[in-house]
């Protein structure tokens, strides 16, 4: 039987990696991620998880080692944050281009300079176009489940999968998490089997990987990554349904909160969603018909679902804990572009908040709603609480 454990977001990742019977873990320490791999190194050293733990000399090497391991058919994992993820960037392209189902946990941390260890999303969102799937989490339970679901999807579509959790708010904060037994996880995600048909390095059938291609071929490789993403959306939807059937926890591409009759929608992601939900409940008492759409799956991006859910609302406010410099908040850009093909579409307002871990409170969200209700047209980026 599964059991509840009070645990941090970081350790929820470690337990999920254990549950997923990962075979190779390679990592380099970085705050606020380090606890993930520290616990894993213990679990491996104690023989509880039959895996190889590789201490490497940088994140670049960590991802390279995962790529090597995954290419032999092993289930591979690494975790990182901010600078570490940025240093991995070259290898992220490689993992996706080589179509390897690696899972990575990224603890969102602001990029330097100036140095910060607190949360915002620019580190992960800067990896948007590497070909990785990405999912954002609001709770430690979501974090735990996302790793297991991640492998299940990744291995079917042969794309790497990144699960993203906020620094400290999740990584270092304890919540009750239902930990599944090995048998339960095995039923959903069977142990990885050697599959020589695909990309696995097989001594009996030697092949070359990553070789130089001419313009006559390269183009199709990229096309196939895109097709895999399109397929991944379907596979993800199918797998979360299966997951819900077995374990009772239902995840969609996003979460809808008080949306049924909502005229106004706040689009959020990650932990500030909890503040938004709290604020929305209060605003509902005042008679404002408002709800929350919490983004979970960011890549592949669920265009159709977004259009279906947001299409005929009165107004939409997107709250971004990130900034696409020279443009707008990144979720804002994406939501707006998703709505563009609709003939009738709501005005979308973009708010930036909580960069570098600045606290976000329900009162801030209420302010945002007040502001949105007053506005008619989107004219500028709104930097909530910025000191000028």
């Amino acid at each position, binding site marked *: 039987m599964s059991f509840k454990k009070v645990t941090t977001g970081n350790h929820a990742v470690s337990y999920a990696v254990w549950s997923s019977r990962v075979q190779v873990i390679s*990592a*380099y*320490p*970085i*705050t606020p991620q*380090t606890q993930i*791999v*520290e616990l894993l*190194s*213990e679990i491996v*050293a*104690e023989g509880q998880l039959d895996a190889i*733990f590789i*201490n490497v*000399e*940088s994140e670049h090497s960590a991802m390279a080692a995962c790529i090597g391991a995954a290419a032999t058919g092993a289930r591979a994992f690494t975790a990182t944050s901010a*600078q570490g993820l940025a240093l991995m960037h070259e290898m992220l392209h490689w993992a996706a281009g080589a179509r390897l189902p690696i899972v990575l946990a990224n603890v969102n941390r602001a990029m*330097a300079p100036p*140095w910060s260890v607190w949360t915002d999303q620019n580190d992960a969102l800067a990896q948007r176009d590497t070909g990785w799937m990405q999912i954002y989490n609001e709770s430690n339970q979501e974090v735990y489940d996302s790793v297991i679901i991640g492998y299940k999807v990744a291995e079917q579509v042969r794309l790497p999968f990144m699960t993203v959790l906020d620094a400290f708010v999740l990584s270092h904060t304890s919540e009750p998490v239902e930990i599944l037994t090995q048998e339960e996880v095995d039923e959903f995600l069977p142990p990885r089997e050697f599959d020589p048909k695909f990309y696995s390095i097989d001594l009996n059938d030697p092949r070359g990987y990553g070789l130089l291609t001419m313009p006559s071929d390269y183009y199709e490789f990229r096309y196939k990554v895109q097709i895999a993403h399109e397929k991944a959306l379907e596979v993800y939807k199918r797998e979360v349904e299966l997951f819900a059937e077995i374990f009772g926890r239902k995840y969609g591409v996003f979460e809808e909160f008080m949306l049924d009759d909502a005229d106004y929608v706040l689009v959020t992601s990650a932990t500030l969603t909890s503040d938004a939900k709290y604020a929305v409940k209060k605003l509902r008492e005042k008679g404002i018909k408002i709800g929350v759409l919490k983004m979970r799956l960011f890549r592949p991006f669920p265009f159709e679902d977004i259009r279906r859910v947001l299409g005929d609302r009165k107004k939409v406010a997107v709250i971004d804990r990130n900034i696409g410099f020279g443009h707008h908040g990144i979720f804002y850009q994406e939501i707006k572009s998703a709505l563009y093909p609709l003939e009738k579409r709501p005005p979308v307002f973009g708010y930036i908040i909580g960069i570098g871990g600045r606290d976000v409170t329900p009162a801030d969200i209420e302010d945002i709603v007040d502001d949105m209700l007053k506005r008619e047209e989107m004219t500028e980026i709104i930097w909530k609480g910025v000191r000028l």
Partner: protein
Amino acid sequence: MNPRQGKFRVVVDEERCKACGICIKACPKNVFDQREDGLAVVAREEDCIGCHICDRLCPDFAITVVEKGDKPLSDEEVTKLNIARNYVRSYVPRFVWCPGCGIGIVFQGIVRAVHQLGIPKDKIVMVSGIGCTGRMPGYADFNTLHTTHGRALAFATGIKLANPELHVIVVMGDGDSVAIGGNHFIHAARRNLDVTAVVINNGIYGMTGGQVAPTTPTGRRATTAPYGNPEPPFDICKLAEGAGANFVARLSTHQAYMPIFTKIIAKAIQKEGFSLVEVLSQCPTYYGRFNIVEDPYKMLQWLKEHTYMKGRKPKHEGDFVLGVLYESDREGLVKVLNRWREEKINASAK
């Protein structure tokens, strides 16, 4: 009675002391007592013989020892005479390092070396990567640059070649310099880049909480090596020598009160080309607690016991040799590039 006794003023700055206890245990004349909250207090100033073991081993620059003058000085006046303190930015209340960390001891060695050489503060650029060691440029009253993990030497290359007038001192942890930054390290040495690299080797990744590093001795424990490190460590000095450094020395923090400590750092700063000073240092919080002892003073004693000066014999297998280990007079990169410009480019332009 020792004829030097009674001639010194000793002051502990309460605002800076972090109660590591090093001075209390290291003082040969038992000048200090420990307050209930752990802070050191001067109890028997008249017994001080001015050996400077306490102030040089103080990681927090909290102790000042000066010879008594004609006129009696207040504690504040004594503290103002602390040379090392003049190299700390005035707004820094105290260092963030754990009590008894060796990094502050090395920091003091560096600023005292700069003081001895008489180099103006503005002619020094201190560059660090990331780590506990990387915090030093936040405190040092030089031009400073706190860069990314492992890349300090790459930033320093740009600084030195753009403005060769500057003395560039690069402070790095062992992880910073030879794990993630290993490539820059060997190439700075190969090119004989005219900078002084001070590597503070505590055998572990300190800042992230005690993970195994490429310098962790085989068998030693870390959070990511719960049963000990199976791999062999780097010998940082041999690495530098092999890669082409002009000056290679190893020190240990327990030597900080000996003149040789600052002398070798000063020599490294003056030397043309790439100079490396590796300082073996204590991380009581992680390396010490996991492997030897948590007490900073006992860690210093351990370092003393397990190191030996070049030319002497080690006591145990795996002991570390100290001193200037290698020196050569290869032309430094700045001169090479200037000469090249003169000989090749300017000549062909004519």
